[in-house]
């Protein structure tokens, strides 16, 4: 089975801090995604990547950046954390459309 691992389950950070969320997948998937989940808003796409060093903005990229230096790792960066970035962050990877996405367990980030 494909495994998508997010480095932290829970994080508490202070306003203004630079925050790194790490995601690693072990099945050589080309496609990787970062979503955030908020009550009443569902899953919203922040950034995605179809290849190493390639990235594209999703629906809500403001305040975020990403890095994909290696195929298996996709990092989400909060340049200067703000309280409205308190959320559940979900990383996903996919091989092709038949298999759908495989999600990590999520990182619950609280910005105080």
């Amino acid at each position, binding site marked *: 089975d494909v495994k*998508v691992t997010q480095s932290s*389950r829970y994080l508490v950070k202070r306003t203004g801090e630079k925050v790194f969320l790490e995601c690693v997948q072990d099945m050589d998937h*080309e*496609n990787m*995604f970062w*979503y955030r989940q908020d009550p*009443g*808003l*569902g*899953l*919203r*796409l922040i950034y*995605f990547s*179809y290849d190493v060093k390639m990235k594209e903005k*999703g629906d809500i990229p403001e305040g975020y950046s990403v890095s994909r230096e290696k195929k298996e790792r996709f990092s989400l960066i909060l340049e200067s954390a703000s309280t409205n970035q308190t959320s559940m962050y*979900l990383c*996903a990877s996919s*091989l*092709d*459309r*038949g*298999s*759908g*996405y*495989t*999600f*990590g*367990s*999520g990182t*619950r980030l609280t910005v105080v």
Partner: protein
Amino acid sequence: DQQVKQNSPSLSVQEGRISILNCDYTNSMFDYFLWYKKYPAEGPTFLISISSIKDKNEDGRFTVFLNKSAKHLSLHIVPSQPGDSAVYFCAAARTNSGGSNYKLTFGKGTLLTVNP
């Protein structure tokens, strides 16, 4: 503009009965649809999918129906079990632009509660 809509935030059914979760979409270019299930503090897990060339796909207790003319799909769970209690997300993709790359657009989710 919300392209994938799940208009029922919650649904409650009795164990053994049928659960029907609905989803509407507005983008006629979507040609692939998926359902995901999510438990609290876990990532969503893929449940079932359907291509726009089909109108039904079945996997055990789960069946997805697609009505392209109405831009509507539904997930049927029969019989419902307490372990099915979770948030269900509908998702859609446009894959007809070529290649295997695509991104999913998700609905807001429906919380299903199956009562024993």
